[in-house]
């Protein structure tokens, strides 16, 4: 392995993996993308439009894909095992190939919380209960018999996030703004519909997010109800009855809806935990991979040659993920420059 261009295995070809591959390729390294799914682009490829500018998700993914066209990309490929070598790592892939590399970049992303685990919300039980991902797919395909022409639509924030009972105490960070984005899109699609958002807190921290909130209130007349939905039931006509407490007035509220959208949260990717264990990288209390330092070295692990980018270390927005991918590429460059 002496005197060759360093090879960097990138696990996951979502936006983090693609962006890091692009940067590493430009820096003269040899990145190799390994993707479990048959296509690249990850979760973002399934999304329709991105906040805050409502830019098409497909444009971003296509741009990243075209800029990494020269990078060796192995889709539909799983990693059977990762082993530590003296000054590198070897990956045994599902197609039988063994890949020897000098560094590994985890761009393994996240899993979306399985909303059917919150049984009281009725996903998978009642027809009119869908998730944020289902709605995003409907925006893409316009095909979902559950949606129809709703006159009343509800959004439930924090489904599987900030919830000890669901095993996830962390905030998923992007659902507040996603719910508002989707609520506005629903209102634009069905102007006559009443739209309700049930929230615990609204965490609109990012650039232009607050503008989105004001737009949802003032221009779209979306009703924000501070209170966590306690239960969802089905009415005799197939609509869903939602119960919550309106904590601002201190009274229980009840509303009948034609469609209920659950904002499923971001949870750790169990595959990443498995790989981390094999190479001896620590997993944090929240299940995400543990950075060497949560302030100054978020893209570095505590083990030489193992780096992180994107949602493998916690919930991230798209621009944060892209910035981290670039940062990880530079951290890898510094690692090899020091090694000489």
């Amino acid at each position, binding site marked *: 392995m002496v005197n060759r261009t360093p090879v960097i295995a990138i696990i996951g070809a979502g936006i983090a993996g693609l962006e890091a591959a692009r940067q590493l390729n430009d820096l003269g390294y040899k990145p190799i993308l390994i993707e479990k799914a048959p296509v690249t682009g990850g979760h973002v490829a399934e999304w329709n439009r991105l906040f805050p500018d409502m830019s098409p998700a497909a444009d971003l993914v296509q741009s990243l894909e075209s800029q990494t066209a020269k990078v060796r990309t192995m889709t539909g490929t799983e990693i059977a095992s990762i082993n530590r070598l003296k000054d590198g790592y070897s990956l045994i892939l599902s197609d039988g190939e063994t890949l020897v590399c000098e560094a590994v970049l985890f761009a393994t992303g996240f899993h979306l919380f399985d909303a059917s685990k919150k049984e009281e919300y009725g996903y998978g039980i009642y027809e009119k209960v869908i998730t944020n991902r289902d709605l995003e797919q409907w925006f893409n395909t316009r095909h979902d018999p559950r949606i129809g022409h709703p006159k009343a639509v509800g959004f439930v924030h924090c489904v599987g996030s900030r919830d000890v009972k669901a095993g996830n105490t962390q905030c998923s960070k992007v659902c507040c703004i996603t719910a508002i984005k989707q609520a506005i899109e629903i209102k634009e699609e069905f102007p006559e519909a009443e739209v309700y958002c049930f929230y615990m807190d609204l965490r609109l921290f990012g650039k232009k997010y607050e503008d989105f909130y004001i737009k949802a*209130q*003032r221009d779209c007349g979306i009703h924000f109800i*501070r209170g966590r939905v306690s239960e969802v039931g089905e009415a005799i006509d197939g609509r869903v009855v939602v119960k919550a407490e*309106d904590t*601002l*007035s201190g009274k*229980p509220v009840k*509303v009948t809806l034609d469609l209920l959208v659950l904002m499923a949260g971001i949870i750790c990717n169990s595959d990443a935990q498995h790989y981390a264990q094999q190479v001896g990288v620590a997993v944090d209390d929240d299940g995400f991979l543990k950075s060497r330092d949560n302030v100054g070295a978020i893209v570095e692990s505590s083990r030489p040659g193992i780096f992180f980018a994107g949602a493998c270390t916690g919930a991230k927005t798209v621009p944060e993920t892209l910035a981290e991918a670039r940062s990880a590429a530079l951290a890898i460059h510094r690692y090899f420059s020091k090694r000489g």
Partner: protein
Amino acid sequence: MDFGFKLNPSSAVNLDTVDRARYDRLVQLEPDALTCIGCGSCSATCTAAPWSGMSVRKVILGLQRGQDDEVDSMLSRCMLCGKCTMVCPRGINTRHLILTLCRLNRKGEIVR
């Protein structure tokens, strides 16, 4: 017939049947009312609130929940000093909003 006890009506708000006519009219006339985030700055700064129970936040919310009696009772106690307008983080002209609301009846018709 007196059974020696009575049933209290449910305090739950049913959003399917709530009449929001006055609120809908208010937001036509004062669109900024829609941007209330219920922070409570208005109530906290109100000179009369400790004695009168006046709270612009509760007025705006009460209109959306069909609590007309409470709303009217609060409105009748406002002195229109305008302190709430000075502190609203969303820049709602709360004093003007109260005046507009006082001109509407429960059906949302302008009567004054």
